[in-house]
């Protein structure tokens, strides 16, 4: 190992990482606690497996730090290819758990390739964008990148695990940073806004609001620039209403009831605390009952009583909220914030385009998980089953995020060396 890396390594980021995984182990221990538990190293118990994966991940992280940074750029294409093969291989060889064929069963351990594909795709996107002829203004580049993203996305949707597929949206941040047209941001945000407005309000009202807004915009701009034509506004009005109508149509005719329910609960249109809303409601009760300081380690009544389904995986944040209270849960939020800021800051300092884009991708991925997972636990985002990085139970997840972060750490530590 290069002795100097110990000096150049961002120990603060490592510390944040260690804090988060420790919080993870403690809370997974609590969420999976049972009287029969003998110790944290009992490999037959969830906590034992998690501990094993964590140790293995840290070991792998150290190995990654020792590898020459250039290796990852060369490895990107091969890694992406291996990832895709693993995803395809799931269809004949995968293990099906609660409807989704997302796991390989290897020697008693479950491996979820969709987690690892997040890393390889990040490397691939960075690799593609850093090629000198790439230009996000060119449709060719956009199509190429879109294609590389769509392939794993579709393979994961087909498992079916739409939640995990959704996180590929993280690369939007990355692309936008690298020069994606503002129009896409506007369209992205308008589409999102229109989507929720359409579902919240009656169709007629939505059409009224959209028409008013667009004509208001037109007259405002007309005053500034009298030469402006009206037809683009008519076209955008037409598309908006068309979109709104199709959202309505898709929502009511294409979506299954469970999808509709999940979205309706977030929109506050439906209160169903026994059925679909049960998870979210119990999670809110757990978090809310934590108060300022929480009930203490292993004292969470909601956690002990298994009231929150999937608490050790998707709803781990509710354990944090219940047992560690406002102090604990806001600390977790702040730690994630700090981590994301640090990664972005360090990415911005990178002069090597590949590494900058990769690190930005890492920040985006961590953010999107953070946003969806905690938002879901707090009942602000529809139920989408993805883990909270470093904290949730799940060997593949901890492995993938550790690899992801340590590659970034490697890039950051070797920033000055490789011009």
């Amino acid at each position, binding site marked *: 190992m290069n002795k100097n890396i110990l000096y150049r390594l961002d120990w603060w980021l490592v510390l944040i990482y260690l804090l988060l995984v420790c919080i993870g182990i403690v809370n997974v221990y609590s969420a999976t606690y049972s009287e029969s538990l003998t110790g944290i190293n009992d490999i037959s118990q969830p906590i034992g497996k998690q501990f094993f994966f964590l140790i293995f991940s840290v070991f792998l992280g150290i190995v990654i730090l020792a590898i020459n940074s250039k290796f990852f750029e060369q490895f990107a294409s091969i890694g992406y290819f291996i990832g895709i093969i693993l995803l395809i291989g799931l269809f004949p060889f995968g293990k099906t758990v609660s409807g989704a064929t997302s796991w390989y069963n290897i020697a008693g351990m479950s491996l979820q390739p969709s987690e690892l594909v997040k890393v390889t795709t990040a490397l691939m996107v960075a690799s593609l964008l850093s090629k000198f002829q790439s230009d996000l203004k060119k449709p060719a580049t956009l199509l190429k990148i879109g294609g590389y993203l769509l392939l794993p996305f579709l393979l994961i949707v087909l498992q079916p695990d739409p939640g995990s597929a959704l996180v590929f949206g993280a690369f939007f941040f990355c692309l936008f940073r690298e020069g994606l047209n503002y129009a896409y941001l506007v369209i992205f945000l308008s589409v999102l806004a229109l989507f929720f407005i359409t579902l919240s309000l009656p169709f007629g009202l939505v059409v009224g609001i959209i028409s008013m807004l667009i004509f208001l915009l037109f007259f405002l701009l007309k005053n500034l620039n009298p030469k402006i034509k009206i037809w683009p506004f008519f076209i955008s009005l037409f598309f908006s209403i068309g979109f709104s109508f199709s959202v309505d149509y898709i929502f009511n005719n294409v979506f299954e009831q469970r999808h509709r329910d999940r979205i309706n609960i977030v929109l506050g249109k439906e209160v169903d605390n026994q059925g679909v809303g049960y998870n979210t409601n119990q999670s809110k009760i757990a978090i809310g*009952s934590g108060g300022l300081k929480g009930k203490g380690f292993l004292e969470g009544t*909601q956690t002990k009583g*298994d009231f929150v389904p999937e608490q050790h995986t998707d709803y781990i944040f509710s354990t944090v*909220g219940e047992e560690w209270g*406002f102090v604990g849960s*806001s600390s977790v*939020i702040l730690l994630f914030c700090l981590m*994301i*800021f640090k990664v972005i800051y360090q990415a911005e300092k990178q002069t090597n385009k590949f590494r900058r884009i990769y690190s930005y991708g890492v920040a985006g991925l961590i953010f999107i998980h953070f946003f969806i997972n905690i938002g879901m636990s707090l009942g602000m985002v529809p139920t989408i089953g993805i883990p909270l990085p470093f904290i949730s139970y799940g060997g593949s997840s901890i492995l993938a995020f550790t690899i992801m972060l340590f590659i970034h750490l490697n890039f950051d530590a070797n920033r000055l060396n490789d011009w």
Partner: protein
Amino acid sequence: MIRRFFLPVVTLITAFIFIGRLVGLQLLNSSYKLLSDGNAVIENAVYPERGYIYDRNHKLLVSNQPVYDLMAIPENITPFDTLELSQTLGVSKVELKEQIRSARSFSVKLPSVILGKISKEHNAHLQEKIWKYRGFYLKKSSVRNYPTPIASNLLGYVSEVNKNDMKKDNYYQLGELIGRQGIEKYYESFLRGTKGKKFYQKDRFNRIIGSYEKGKYDEPVKGAKNLILTIDKELQQYGEDLLQNKRGGIVAIEPQTGEVLSLISAPSYNPNILVGRERSKNYRILALDTLAKPLFDRGLQAQYAPGSPFKTLNALIALQEEVIDVKTSYLCQKGHYYARGMFMECHCKMGTNNNLLSGIYRSCNTYFANIYRRIIDRSGNNVEEGMNIWNEHLKSFGLGNYLGYDLPVGKKGFIPDADYYNYWYKKGGWKSATVVSNAIGQGEILTTPIQMANFTAAIANRGFFFQPHFMKAVINDSTSQVYEKKKTSIDSIHFEKVIEGMYQVVERGTAKIAKIKGIEVCGKTGTVENFMKIDGVKTQLTDHSIFIAFAPKNDPKIALAVYVENGYWGGRWAAPIASLMIEKYLNRVVKRKWLENRMLNGSLMEEYEKPYSGQPFVINE
């Protein structure tokens, strides 16, 4: 710039929104804390063992016995031999299957009672075999146990609370027990104790997974108290044996204290049948027996005419009102005309001259009719005043009203006053002759056996009594009830004369059979006419046999009243029974085996069936 700061700003906004949400959920809204408690904490009551009941000599009357509920957790049940289990339990296979099915529909994860209160016999077999049936287990609970099946009406019983009980006292929860009758009801708060609370943590299937906060919020059980009654167990049992195959009541009181030594009502029932699985079935049988009325406490609730024992009170009132003295005498011609054409019979021989003493021991109707009329007519023509004075005297003996004893049932009895006769005969429409039946304890007067025993105690005490009561002490409890001495309106000097008469009743009068060697017994027999409506026709039945007594004469230790329904005359059943009771209580052994056997074996069942035979029948044979 926007490109650079887009993700950091979005991250920051997200973090702000999340922390804002956390402030809302965790710091500002306390309802989630309650919701989580309701979710995850279960409160279980812990019950103290119901208090034991002892007799005055610390002999056990009521204790508890374990019974077992067969419980099952449906999801744990594996296929088993339903026929064998149903036979072990003593229920039909269909019933067993039905129980398991309904348990399953209640919850597959929570325990349900498959068969409640399994008796000792079935339990013994079941204990051996229970291992065979996966998912089943036995849960211990406890019911009342009566080592000697006596005093059922006095002790009362417990049963599960109903909606009314819960409305009246919110202490009670569905499925809990409450004292329903007798001592169990009156002293419920002592016997019950106060239940404790234990908080458990439960999981989302409502299964208990441990104690909540290490028992920080648990409330301890406050112990139930054991009671010592004034009842003498041996005497109680003896009295019940003596009254077997008869109907009636016995009340025995210790005059110096007012402690009730025994309260017997016949027919009774075995209190052990009102516990366990057959309880409601057996209760229905008892409640529906409208002829023998086993749940009717004759000692407290039966209102009879007092009959001749009442003459002692009239004598006392006459002495107090100074309308007679000991020498006042009347000639009895096998009775006398108290008004034109109105003759009152008497069993005195033709031409007997009776004064106070012989009037009592011969129970002369003529003598008492005359002295009673003197009381009523003491103010000349103003019978109302005489009637009310007489009434007041009687009330001072605790007649005509509740005695205030510590049991939940009772009757007032009835002592007429001037208003009562003014209502029936109109003002001025009645004279002392009109109401002369009161002289001999017939007429309008009604008393309960405990009232009779109480006034006997007052006579024994020469002029006072203590409120009769059943509780002697609460073990390990500082509460003690003090009973004040209640003085009668008769001066104590008058009692000796009447007591001498009562002594002579036993020595040479109507109750010589009640004589006990070595004990000076004072008593008074009674023979009470009684009627019953049969098919709407008022029909006279065989007289009730009555006796009041106390002993020893100069240091009374026991005073009692005995009623034997349709026993004919007082000396036939009531006096011997009273005498045996006295002997038993004072000597602890009964030497007069011949008399004892006659009473134990004697039956009046044929007499009780007569009116229902549908045939004409002869009374007083």
